[in-house]
């Protein structure tokens, strides 16, 4: 187990260093996020639907599309010079590879969310601060679920043609449960209701995380082996 975690961290650290050098995934996801929020801001009629009713959906649609952009990159960089082949020959377990990618992807998406949340507050003027801690918990729980599934699918599609197109097509149906939970919990929190009203949705998110972390870890070796 110690070897698995050590190898996973080695892979995650390498991915983070590569991202720091190129800034491809994070920068494009951050720009994309800003653009989506801008489009939503100017594309709605504030007199027809109250901002507070619309905001949770906008936040989570933005987060999930930005996550897909970052996830697309996860295995793409292993195809450059076919590093993936050497990773599969190396003595590390497939689980290490999955966990390493998962950790790196979580960090990418967290950075994007850290930029997106203040922009969201700026554009939509929603009262985030009074429920910040529980909102961060909702974001963390939903993000783990998104990224657990996304990392698996990103490995699955990487050797297919049109991988960048395939990923959202396969992934979005699996995003529906955590997306629903996250939107419902966020709506309650932004509305100033007590945390207990969102508890059921938080349990759904936690259950989804556990189920898909276990499933993805078990299925991942079958997606990368020829």
């Amino acid at each position, binding site marked *: 187990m110690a*070897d698995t975690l050590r*190898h996973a961290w*080695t*892979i995650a650290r*390498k991915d983070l*260093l*590569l991202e720091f*050098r*190129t800034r491809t995934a994070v920068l494009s996801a951050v720009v994309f996020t800003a653009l989506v929020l801008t489009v939503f801001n100017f594309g709605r009629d504030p007199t027809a639907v109250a901002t507070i009713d619309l905001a949770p959906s906008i936040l989570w649609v933005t987060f999930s599309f930005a996550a897909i952009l970052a996830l697309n990159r996860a295995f793409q*960089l292993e195809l*450059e*010079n*076919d*590093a993936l*082949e*050497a*990773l*599969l*020959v*190396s*003595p*590390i377990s497939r689980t290490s590879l999955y966990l390493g990618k998962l950790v790196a992807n979580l960090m990418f998406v967290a950075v994007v969310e850290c930029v997106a949340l203040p922009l969201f507050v700026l554009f939509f003027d929603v009262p985030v601060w009074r429920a910040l801690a529980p909102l961060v918990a909702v974001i963390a729980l939903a993000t783990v679920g998104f990224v657990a599934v996304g990392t698996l699918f990103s490995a699955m599609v990487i050797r297919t043609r049109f991988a960048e197109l395939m990923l959202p097509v396969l992934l979005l149906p699996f995003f529906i449960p955590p997306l629903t939970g996250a939107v419902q919990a966020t709506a309650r929190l932004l509305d100033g209701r007590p945390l207990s009203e969102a508890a059921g949705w938080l349990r759904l998110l936690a259950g989804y995380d556990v189920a898909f972390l276990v499933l993805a870890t078990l299925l991942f070796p079958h997606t990368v*082996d*020829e």
Partner: protein
Amino acid sequence: MLRADGLRHAFGHVIALDDISFSLAPGRTLVIFGPNGAGKTTLLKVLAGLIRPQAGRAAVAGGRRAIGWIGHQSHLYAHLTVAENLVFWAALYDVPAGRRRARAAEVMRRLAIADQADRRVWALSRGLAQRAAIARALMHDPQVLLLDEPFTGLDLAAAAEVRALLTQLRGAGRVVVLATHNVDEGAELATDVAFQRRGRFVHFAPRGAHESAEIAEAYRRAVGAGAAGGAGGTTGG
């Protein structure tokens, strides 16, 4: 050290491996010659554990940890430096943290790329990148080296240096399996020679005292004329 028993594999109707069997003892170098599409890469991938054969079994003493792999590409990250790449791969092979930089320096020196240590891989020429790829495969001092067209992109001097290095490794008891379509390169390295055609070994034998030119002639006869031969063999114990 390395053993293949009755390996068979096909991609649809295309037969890539057809009853391949052989074993190699420490200090042996098998050079597999064959035209494009003969199944050489598939054989190396099966030996490396990248492809599970549809029949038969391949085993390397020491498992994946004992294998040094050089495929068609460099397997290096373009935006890392050569040294960073080598240290990364050493970490995956559990080379002790305190030894990784020294080992990288040693391997780069052997491949005459020490002055490239701090250059990013994308900035290297094809030949330098190929040397860095070989350095990567040697970082964990593997017992078995599997090389697929390792001389691609190397100039004559660099190819000669790599041949000298492989000869040294053979002398140190390493097993080397090298696949190439070019019969003019690699023959002098061989202790054992195989000719592969349509997935089959149409010839497998110790090189003996045969000169490279004789091997080239035998290859042209065997593969060009589709000569039949033994489907496998055992050499060097």
